[in-house]
């Protein structure tokens, strides 16, 4: 698959811009929305770099995070977040267009059952024991063929524990509670 490098770089710059805006923005709402932009662009990047499973997970996690964060800051913020009827109509039209295109290209998008697009799994299983000398195929996939996934999981645990330590600390709290 040919990668369009300028396009990827543009996406990455957009993602960086989203992160910077989400840190520096004054209002919580715009900060959360620009953070969501960064996450959704990340899922597009995953798709372009050939990791559709990660892209699906990323888009799911991003949407759930956005909903949770927005519903949390709704009580804190004073911004007007009620939607008018126009936005509803626009959303409906966009979804109708999406569905129309999907039905039009149904045959190309959805593969017949039992014929997946990705056939990498067979190669992993075949290479695990003879090439890598690792009889446990699960470990060889998790730690060698798909090492990026494991690095991400380790980062998730690290961030979670950092969050626990930071949220439940006693010293250095501003409000003294």
């Amino acid at each position, binding site marked *: 698959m040919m990668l369009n490098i300028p396009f990827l770089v543009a996406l990455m710059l957009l993602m960086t811009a989203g992160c910077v805006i989400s840190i520096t923005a004054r209002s919580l709402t715009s900060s959360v929305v620009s953070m969501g932009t960064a996450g959704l662009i990340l899922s597009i990047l995953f798709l372009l770099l050939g990791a559709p499973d990660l892209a699906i997970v990323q888009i799911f996690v991003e949407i759930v995070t956005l909903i949770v964060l927005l519903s949390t800051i709704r009580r804190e913020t004073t911004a007007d977040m009620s939607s008018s009827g126009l936005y509803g109509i626009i959303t409906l039209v966009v979804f109708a267009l999406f569905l129309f295109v999907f039905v039009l290209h149904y045959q190309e998008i959805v593969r017949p059952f039992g014929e997946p697009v990705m056939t990498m799994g067979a190669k992993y299983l075949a290479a695990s*024991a003879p*090439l*890598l*000398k*690792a*009889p*446990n195929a*699960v*470990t*060889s996939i*998790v*730690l*060698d063929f798909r*090492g*990026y996934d*494991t*690095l991400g999981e*380790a*980062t998730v*645990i*690290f961030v*979670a*524990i950092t969050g*626990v*330590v930071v949220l*439940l600390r*006693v010293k250095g709290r501003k409000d003294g*509670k």
Partner: protein
Amino acid sequence: MENKGMSEIVKGIARIVFPFIVLYSISLILYGHITPGGGFAGGVVLTGGFVLLLLAFGKEYVFHFFPLEIAKSLDSTGALGFLAIALMGLLGGAFFYNLLPKGTLFNLWSAGTIMLSNIMIGLKVSAGLFVAIVILSMARLIRTKEGLRYKQSGKEEDQ
């Protein structure tokens, strides 16, 4: 110290069982590329052993030979070590490239960097989960006149 923790029966059983838990977790981590197991599973089992000690003897006893600061730095060491193994692959041409000699099938010293990665992940998961469980177990909410107030048990009383 004597009346901290649970009864003498629990303490005795914990004393007997703890070395076996540690041994089992080390075997899970080291043989992760041959038998089912690996860094994540072995690390969680090791944390289970420490939590058993924490419940049976109280946290002062556990902190005596596994202080929280050391656990925090071990957590970071595991994460950075795993990243270093991944970066080491760049010497062979690609991120996560397995450039160590592969050895023979079913030997302990085989499969290149997989065993090192397992050790690092085991270190990271066990130390990190230990920190999280200890800090969560120390968290208390105290009801005061102004409302609920957060404090950690065992820390200095700043009333």
